[in-house]
């Protein structure tokens, strides 16, 4: 599992691409086209998803597209690393924004992060209804469940 551990730890989302980068980027986007082009580009930063992790327990239900989520908890640093994959590009972009906010944090910090506030700040809720089948809620819910489980263990 060491090779895939590197995949987790080297995920640029939340490490090289920070929350500030995303917030700064969004600040200068005027119309929906620029906004979505930016989201789609962020999605291109998702690292390749490990094929062996495409198993039922990693499948995120409640999305129109296929969404997969896997994690690696680094006991030495106490940090939780996440990988997400989807076959829909806008969902990949939303996943990237989620990772920028939550990836590589301690489970406690992750659980304390208000992701709704972030999406409001990005003015995304107005454009991307969390009920519209893009699985925003389902992704965040599964990540928080994972963090809660790791924190207890």
């Amino acid at each position, binding site marked *: 599992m060491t090779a895939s551990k590197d995949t987790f730890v080297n995920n640029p989302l939340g490490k090289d691409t920070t929350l500030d980068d995303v917030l700064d980027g969004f600040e200068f986007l005027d119309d*929906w*086209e620029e906004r*979505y*082009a930016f989201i*789609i580009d962020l999605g291109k930063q998702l690292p390749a998803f490990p094929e062996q992790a495409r198993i039922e327990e990693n499948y995120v239900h409640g999305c*129109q*597209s*296929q969404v997969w989520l896997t994690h690696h908890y680094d006991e030495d640093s106490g940090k939780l690393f996440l990988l997400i994959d989807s*076959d*829909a*590009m*806008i*969902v990949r972009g939303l996943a990237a924004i989620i990772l920028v906010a939550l990836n590589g944090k301690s489970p406690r910090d992750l659980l304390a992060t208000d992701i709704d506030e972030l999406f409001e700040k990005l003015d995304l809720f107005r*454009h*991307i209804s969390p009920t*519209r*089948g*893009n699985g925003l809620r389902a992704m965040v819910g599964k990540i928080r469940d994972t963090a809660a489980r790791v924190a207890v263990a």
Partner: protein
Amino acid sequence: MTDLSVARTAHQSAFDVDAIRRDFPILSQQVNGKPLVYLDNGASAQKPTAVLDAMDRYYREMHSNVHRGAHTLGDRATAAFEGARETVRGFLNAESTREIIWTRGTTEAINLVANGLAPRLKAGDEILVSHMEHHANIVPWQMIAERTGAKVVPIQVTPEGELDLDSFNSLLNDRTRILAITHVSNVLGTVNPVAPLIEQAKARGVVTLLDGAQAVPHYQPDVQALGCDFYVFSAHKLFGPTGIGVLYGKAQLLEEMPPYQGGGEMIERVSFERTTWNTLPYKFEAGTPAIAEAVGLGAAVDYLGGLNRPAMEAAEKALLDRANQLVETVPGMEVIGTAKHKVPVISFKIAGLHPSDIGTLLDQQGIAIRTGHHCAMPLMDFYGVPGTARASFAFYNTLDEVEQLFAALQKVQRLFA
């Protein structure tokens, strides 16, 4: 307004679509800062003012429970409610209002029939459906098959999206008890050649049901000419309210079927020793019905009756033809379902794009379509796609809106390039 290079070849003459659009108040609004282009009529159609007013007036002036009150309002409500039943009887050309049962919709109507026919089924019997059915015309049959030991057998579909008649001929046999197929496919728009299939099935004593949910917004079916035993549809796709649908059934079969739900209204006499059923259609209408919705459905049928139907069908065909012409303006776009005889519905995929991406970005441009599996997973499996994007048109859509859809799709494609 769009600079699409393919010239129009058809015109919506003899059908004043602008005047018709004024009858549908919801259509004249902005969504995401753009004029709404509503192309999700296959999922649910919009309602004309005539329907809204009829329901409003019903509640303001005549609401009471039906078939009960010894008072004037009760009489008014009953007259409006039963008047709607007569209107629907006329729409379908059924022999009698005894054959018009109110249900919650197509889904409940099929469940009612499946349960009613279950006592006739035994192990080894076959229920013939098709590969293009909506889940509502698959799952209820699977549920009674499970109970009775019968088997649900699908008629194959051709790559163009038509029923494979060789498959039908080879599957219709002495074990077939029920033929339950869709009149029009919700995904493909295919209009199935149901009349000859029903004739063949009837010759073998097979009970026949047509799912008319996607047919009635475009055609007026004549159930006596079709010869089917059951015909079902939902009001909300027929420009009427949600929460009500219709089961047409031949009186003799309905008489033979046991009630579906028990309760008030559906009984003749109740005692702890013996309860007897009410006559048709009330035997299948337990509880207080959706009265205002029935009135609304009646108003929808009346509204449609006031339209020039041949002109409306020609206008719908012009919409479909225009859409088919413009497919080539979007590289990588492929229409799923290219049957010769179609209602104005196009299901499509675009190479490299997920249907949900297409739907989200069209919505940003004010255009409402449906994306996903359309409650037809076996058909999605047949075409090897996780889902499709579907634009489904109604008579109130315009050629301009068709062109806006394609201009918007070009924009979506540029965004992903």
